[in-house]
């Protein structure tokens, strides 16, 4: 096939990018080479629009063993143990084919983690759908949940936490972000940097088929009405093979045969071989006839661009081939020596004894395009001045009912009951809490993880929104008694070629960076997903933050269920009555303008660290952070989970009660303490200048807000639990 500018543009390259390729090669590429360039230079693989801004993120810290740039980030959790983790998007394929799209998203992220030598110990996900009324939403949700469960359950890795939201901005572009944590010994971490000449390059795992060709390019473009035609670009997952691949890889990794290992994810054999060569500053030579194929007559172009799942590329030590082959034979997996490392610094491909591609590796990686896209700075919206009259018609009970049954607040049990969250026998906090928690097998330690996003705040003011998401992740970890250690992020945005969308990206990144720097909560891995957009309409900016924290003694873990009658509930952090952009404003007042709540990082840090010290001293019986839906929503959830009630004290502040109950001011928690500890707790909080107030006392199954406003816990539960199941059955 003749290659020219038109063909290049059909591959998703810009005309000027094609010219750059010809210049770098000093000739016209052949079709296989063009395919390779298009795979490496698309947004998904090259980060060409985001690289410039991602550099601002703080990625170092005393607990960071490996920051961004590897298959996943790695943090130190002491005693020679480390946690490998990352979050990644699979948005575009999940919209086209929800089951396979979501399933392979989960499979891909687990592969990223075990590629580094870690056994996956927990999965999380952040999934976002269009309006519940939209005709596609229900089927997409059902398919995505089945896909996530289908893959994770079969792998035997518990899905311990997640987040689900509905917003009409996702009508044409759903989001599926999957996160995995793995456990590894610090001295047994594997990297993707090839080293040494004439080392055998090994292909293991599934055979290569024609599925997923151009998957990464598809994920680097907006959707239009021809989206159905893109189905063949979606990969098909086989979790059974991945389970075998996991066991085989870990078995091989227990020895010292592997120099470098890289999973074949986006852009398959192309990106895996090039990344290994690039990091090692080497060349690589591959005989494509040796690649195990599941279909007949596959061309070099197809072999290089296939995104068939469950495959790995390994650079082995010389002489270890037989030993490695034996392990993969035992697990019934393909094993093929397909090439070797060279000193040419080129990627050279051979097929039927002919050279079919010869490209300097640096042209694909270092010389890939990088853009400083134009972007628009967002103004902080003006605060709404709410008139007193808007509240007079409202009744607390009705408002609470609406909020607890809102699709973004209600219980997501229908979803997480379909995920095996207890396999591996170490899940000590199940989904539905502030964070999921798993023990580090055989130790007293536990790892907490949470995934969060607040698209509405980011949309209203990206800089504040970016900060808020990091702060929320931090709070969710602290609420279970974990010391926040590091984050991974999945940055889901519209088109970077649109100045508004690009502005949202730049400022969210700035906000994330500022908060993560201040909180000493560095970013160790992540990915960017642009072009979440159909025609001209992009999604609300949705950075998902996956936070990970350590609990040194798992017996000190905190849950949110109320524990004991007569215990006191305290509010930590000041309630200022910020209603703009709250769920209350949007769903009760139908007010969509105004700024998101301000994030005061000093207070976040001070309040969070003070709470951790109270937990350390065993004062805290239960805790929950206050976020979406405000204070009354948070205490309702604690009541429901603990099947206990609360009698409120008389409110002493000047706020309107709706503002007090439903404001979404940041930096706040609810804590349960024993009356006998009140003096000591107050002393510590006062010493640290942490604002706190008493909310009420725990009683039997009733929430008594004042003489006129009483609700039973069963009422609260029915508001909160039924929405999703009824919706799916309707």
């Amino acid at each position, binding site marked *: 096939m003749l290659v020219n500018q038109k063909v290049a543009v059909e591959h998703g390259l810009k005309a000027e990018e094609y010219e750059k390729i010809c210049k770098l090669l000093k000739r016209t590429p052949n079709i296989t080479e063009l395919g390779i360039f298009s795979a490496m230079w698309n947004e998904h693989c090259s980060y060409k629009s985001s690289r410039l801004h991602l550099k601002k993120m703080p990625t170092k810290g005393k607990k960071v063993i490996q920051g961004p740039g590897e298959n996943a980030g790695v943090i130190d959790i002491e005693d020679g143990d480390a946690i490998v983790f990352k979050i990644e998007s699979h948005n575009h394929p999940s919209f086209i084919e929800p089951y396979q799209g979501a399933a392979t998203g989960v499979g891909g992220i687990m592969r990223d983690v075990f590629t580094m030598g870690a056994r996956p110990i927990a999965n999380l996900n952040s999934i976002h759908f269009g309006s519940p009324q939209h005709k596609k939403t229900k089927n997409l949700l059902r398919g995505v949940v*089945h896909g996530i*469960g*289908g893959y994770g*359950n*079969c*792998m*035997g890795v518990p899905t311990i936490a997640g987040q689900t939201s509905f917003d009409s901005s996702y009508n044409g572009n759903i989001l599926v972000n999957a996160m995995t944590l793995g456990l590894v010994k610090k001295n047994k971490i594997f990297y993707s940097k090839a080293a040494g000449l004439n080392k055998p390059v090994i292909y293991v795992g599934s055979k290569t088929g024609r599925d997923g060709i151009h998957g990464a390019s598809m994920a680097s473009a907006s959707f239009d009405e021809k989206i159905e035609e893109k189905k063949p670009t979606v990969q098909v997952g*086989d*979790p*059974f*093979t991945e*389970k*075998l691949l996991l066991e085989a890889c870990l078995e091989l990794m227990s020895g010292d045969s592997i120099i470098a290992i890289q999973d074949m994810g986006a852009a398959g054999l192309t990106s895996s071989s090039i990344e290994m060569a690039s990091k090692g500053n080497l060349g690589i030579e591959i005989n494509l006839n040796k690649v195990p194929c599941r279909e007949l007559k596959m061309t070099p172009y197809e072999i290089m661009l296939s995104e068939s799942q469950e495959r790995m590329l390994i650079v082995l030590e010389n002489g270890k081939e037989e030993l490695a082959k034996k392990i993969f034979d035992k*697990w*019934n997996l393909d094993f093929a020596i397909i090439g070797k490392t060279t000193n040419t610094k080129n990627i050279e491909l051979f097929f039927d004894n002919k050279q079919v591609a010869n490209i300097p590796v640096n042209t694909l990686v270092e010389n890939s395009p990088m853009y400083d896209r134009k972007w628009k700075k967002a103004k902080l919206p003006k605060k709404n001045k709410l008139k007193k009259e808007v509240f007079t018609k409202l009744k607390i009970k009705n408002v609470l009912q609406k909020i607890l049954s809102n699709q973004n607040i209600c219980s997501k049990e229908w979803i*997480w*009951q*379909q*995920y*095996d*969250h*207890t*396999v*591996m*026998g*170490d*899940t*000590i906090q199940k989904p539905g809490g502030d964070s999921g928690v798993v*023990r580090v097998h055989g130790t007293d330690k536990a790892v907490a993880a949470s995934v969060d996003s607040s698209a509405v705040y980011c949309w209203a003011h990206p800089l504040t929104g970016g900060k808020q998401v990091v702060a929320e992740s931090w709070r969710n970890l602290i609420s279970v008694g974990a010391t926040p250690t590091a984050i991974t992020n999945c940055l889901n945005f519209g088109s970077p070629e649109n100045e508004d969308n690009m502005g949202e990206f730049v400022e969210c990144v700035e906000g994330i960076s500022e908060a993560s720097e201040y909180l000493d909560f560095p970013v160790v891995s992540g990915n960017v997903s642009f072009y979440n957009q159909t025609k001209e309409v992009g999604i609300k900016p949705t950075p998902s933050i996956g936070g990970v924290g350590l609990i040194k003694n*798992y*017996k000190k873990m905190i849950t949110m269920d109320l524990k004991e009658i007569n215990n006191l509930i305290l509010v930590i952090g000041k309630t200022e009555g910020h209603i703009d952009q709250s769920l209350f404003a949007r769903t009760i007042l139908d007010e969509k303008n105004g700024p998101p709540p301000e994030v005061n990082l000093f207070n976040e840090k001070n309040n969070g660290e003070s709470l951790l010290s109270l937990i350390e001293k065993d004062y805290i019986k239960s805790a929950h952070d206050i976020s979406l839906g405000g204070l009354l929503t948070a205490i309702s959830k604690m009541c429901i989970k603990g099947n206990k009630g609360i009698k409120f004290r008389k409110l002493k502040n000047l706020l309107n009660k709706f503002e007090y109950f439903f404001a979404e001011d940041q930096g706040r928690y609810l804590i349960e303490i024993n009356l006998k500890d009140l003096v000591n707790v107050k002393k510590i909080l006062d010493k640290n200048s942490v604002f706190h107030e008493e909310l009420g006392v725990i009683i039997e199954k009733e929430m008594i807000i004042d003489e006129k406003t009483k609700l039973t816990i069963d009422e609260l539960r029915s508001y909160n639990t039924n929405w999703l199941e009824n919706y799916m059955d309707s």
Partner: protein
Amino acid sequence: MKSSVITFPGSNCDRDMDVALKKFGFNNKMVWHNDSELPKSDLIVLPGGFSYGDYLRCGSMASKSKIMQSVINFAKSGGLVMGVCNGFQILVEAGLVPGVLLRNKYLQFICKNVFVKLENKENSYFKNLDKNILEFHIAHNEGNYFCTNDQLKEIEDNNQIALYYCDNEGQINENFNPNGSIKNIAGIFNKNKNVLGMMPHPERMIDQSLSGEDGSLFFKNLINNIR
């Protein structure tokens, strides 16, 4: 007491079962599906998971594994064989216990705590247990037990129903049936009661920090019964 847990390709509760058995005093060995001989054992366990990816039918390919002939012989000679979840499915496919396991009634994987009622304590698994109602944990997609009317009559006549899904007070009815199983059946014996297949995972209930501790009761009692 010696036990063996068989690992099939795709088993994923084999380690959890190993941890549980060892915790309560078994000297446990892991056995690879492609071996032909079993180590000397007082108890053989087929663990949960997705052997062969649940392809074809859950448990069907694993039931033809090399090791299974030895397991079948061991069971026929009266040895204790317990299958949990996918292990139950394998037992059914191997013909060691009657019936079949269909897709859950609501066509969804289900992971949650359930209560089960014991009806028959005249066997090595439940003899001497103080409780009749246990809180166990299920996690499966195909746990909907089904058999023909003739089989059901035979099973009932022989007291082969090991566990029923119920509520916390032992009520057995459709409201507490998570998967549509006939008669709320959660576990079943062979005729001689030496082979037990059950959907619930006792190995996930062995620690107060986990979903509960009724699994501990089960394993402690089991090892005492075998002694």
